[in-house]
């Protein structure tokens, strides 16, 4: 190891370079420039960046993006308080947005553009968060393994006949938590518990971190059925049109609860120092062009009534959504998590 001994000059250079870097102040969260927005996004980078790039192209406002878990980001906003670098929060779950609003992290908005574009049931009463696109928690099935009339309701998946034939998301998934919250609100705790226990037994080790993996497992025939948000199915079909999978809108039977709906949405962080730019972004996202872009990128349902849904999707008018109000997802969450833990879902 003779070259180690011959290193002093290099070593000194490295050290002095470091000192320079340290003094350059990388340790202090740098104050963002005026025409720059920082976004905490629970929506994955792939699904949000193109929309934000379009916004940057239109307005010249640069965007710094931190993509991570939704709950993790809300926790982070709470801990950072007024010092947070974030200007906006984008998540894929209304419950998380409502929790952030209840914790006083989001700024109420009084904007005509929002009220004209997004129906009231898809936003907070004070517009502290605004829904941007609709998503449904559905059953994906492998057409070669299952007939669509074999499953009517999500609750059917707890039936022992599906043992080792279903795949589900893990218990940290906000979609799962929101979905179970709606089931609890509709059917009560006892029935929900039985459902979860059945689900746990049937899925066994087929518990996934990512919904895309669930769809993949169904497409390959590793399992027959999975519970995911609808767009994962269309996204898979867009890449592999021959995959033997299809969407089953559950709970549409007479007296059924209706498909479980959630929205992806945005809120402006209370402590933002770039209110005007942030409002511009919200405006962009609720306007027709933004709505089309945001929804289509992920094959979701736009919430603006005048914007057309991607023709590949099941037509929105052809099915019913569950009646539990979105904002209620927040208060339902904690007891839902307790129930999920009690059952011992992974």
């Amino acid at each position: 190891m003779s070259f180690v001994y011959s290193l002093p000059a290099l070593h000194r250079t490295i050290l002095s370079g470091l000192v320079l870097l340290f003094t350059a102040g990388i340790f202090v969260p740098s104050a963002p420039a005026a025409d720059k927005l920082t976004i905490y996004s629970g929506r994955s980078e792939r699904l949000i960046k193109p929309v934000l790039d379009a916004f940057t192209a239109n307005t010249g406002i640069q965007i710094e993006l931190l993509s991570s878990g939704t709950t993790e980001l809300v926790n982070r906003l709470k801990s950072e308080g007024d010092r947070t670098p974030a200007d906006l929060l984008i998540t894929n779950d209304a419950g998380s947005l409502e929790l952030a609003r209840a914790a006083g992290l989001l700024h109420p908005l009084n904007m005509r553009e929002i009220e004209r574009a997004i129906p009231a049931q898809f936003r907070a009463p004070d517009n502290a968060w605004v829904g941007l696109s609709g998503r449904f928690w559905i059953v994906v099935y492998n057409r070669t393994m299952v007939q669509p009339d074999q499953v009517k309701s999500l609750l059917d998946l707890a039936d022992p006949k599906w043992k080792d034939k279903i795949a589900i998301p893990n218990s940290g998934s906000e979609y799962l938590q929101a979905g179970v919250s709606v089931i609890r609100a509709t059917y009560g705790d006892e029935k929900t518990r039985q459902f979860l226990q059945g689900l746990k037994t049937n899925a066994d080790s087929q518990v996934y971190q990512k919904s895309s993996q669930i769809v993949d497992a169904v497409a390959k025939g590793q399992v027959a059925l999975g519970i995911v948000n609808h767009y994962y199915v269309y996204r898979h079909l867009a890449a592999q049109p021959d995959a033997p999978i299809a969407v089953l809108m559950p709970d549409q039977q007479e007296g059924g609860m209706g498909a479980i709906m959630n929205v992806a949405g945005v809120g402006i962080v209370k402590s933002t120092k770039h209110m005007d730019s942030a409002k511009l972004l919200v405006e962009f996202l609720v306007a027709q062009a933004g709505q089309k872009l945001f929804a289509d990128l992920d094959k979701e349902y736009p919430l603006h009534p005048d914007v057309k849904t991607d023709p590949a999707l099941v037509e929105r008018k052809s099915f019913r959504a569950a009646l539990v109000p979105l904002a209620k997802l927040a208060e339902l969450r904690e007891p839902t998590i307790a129930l999920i833990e009690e059952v011992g879902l992974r």
Partner: protein
Amino acid sequence: MSTIRQQLASPLQLLVLASAGIILLPLGYVTAQALSADPVVWSRLWATRIPELLFNTVSLAASVAVITLVLGVSTAWLVTRVDFPGRRLWEGALVLPLAMPTYVLAYVYSYLLGFGGPVEHLWQLVAGPQARIFSPHSYGGATLVMALDTFPFVYLLSRSALLSMNVSFEEVARASGVSRLSTLWRVTLPLMRPSIAAGVALVILYVVSDFGAVSLLRYQTLTYAVFQQMTGRSDNTAASILSLLLVGLALIFLITERWFRQRSRFYQTTGRYRAPQRHRYGWFGALAVTGYLGLIVGAAFALPASLLIQWSLSPEAQATLDSRFFGFVWNSGILATSAATGGVLICLPLAYLASRRPTMLNLGCLQAAYAGYVLPGPVAALAVLVLFSKLAPVFYGSVLILIVAYVIHFLPAGLQSLEPALQHMSPNLEEVARTLGLGIRDTWRRVTLPLVRNGFVVAWVLMFLQTMKELPATLLLRPVGFDTLAIRVWMEASEEYYQLAAPSALLIVLLSLPALALLISKDWRAA
């Protein structure tokens, strides 16, 4: 009394106390939070998650330990006691898997063995179109990946035991008419036992604290569960409780490893050293040995590495090599450089005082610095997060808390190479300098530092390398715009975008190689 006051007054002493404090406070805080948690939370966790998690963690550690034991000892024996063509090449190649972070190996294997993957296709050619192989997303898959990634620990320790062993013991046994196999069983292996045990304990410690492989292979261990609790829940109580259990578990293995390492000191200095005689095998034997070693190195390094290269050359992957990619490289570099430098600066006074003034206080501080060993990534992140949000919320979301987490986590790796460097240097040298009229500062600058420079460099490289590969703490604590190479690998791989993850993964492996080469001749223990 006066000596104590003197010690406390010295600035170096204060620095050391402060460092030990920075390291122990987060651990203490998590412990306090876990212990003060509502008993309802404890009992709920006991009733639901804990038994499964403990069982999964311990059984994974056990199976990996057994496999690495077999692989490590057999390969070490072959390269030290058998002569075959290319022996020296294999001797080095067996260390290569250490350059593969577990999450990289895990993602390669979830492709290779995955449902509808290449191995299954091959198997279906043999066993019919409906045949299935075992899923990598399972106990078996996690065992395979962890064993392939960690057996070099056992290999390295066994190899050095075999090389430093006094061969006359074996010769006496052979001369007394004991068969070759029986000598191996009754003399060689018992002599190697402390080294093997230390290697296996190290493997277990590694498995228990791994996050990357188990998260990608969806195998529920305590470390993974801590991460899931932190990212899926709005309060950290359950995460703290699981962390405390994990720390306890890791502590048990750490103590075991230390105990064996101390015992291994007894015999290694005895006797005169002579190179052991190597058996020369015929062409068939040589072929068999080469095949065996080739299989292991191929599965653990060559195959994954060539897949990474192939994926990196795909058009999808090439398209990601834009300025953003170089931003990630830069972030990784900056973070690793800062953490390694900060770590070395904290290591040095700790190790120095413990070797020059080995008071209870100083030795205690040094031991405290080894706490990082029992703080797996997510736990270190949790600890730092909780502490900073209570005591110094200003730094929350800044690079500083990420670097503090790295330093705490990787300090043991640095100390392990600095400590011996200082111990090997006789204090006489410093004393001579002082008697010849050099001041304290000049003595440090002109005598002490140049003499420990080697250990210094190795410690720095080690911490740099580990920070570069670190995943869970980075995921949890990274500030806005601070995605690293490791983060990119994990984000792409966890959505099964294998090609897109490849360039970052390949770069991590390539950067690890020269560092690995440097460490093999120094201190590889924490590579």
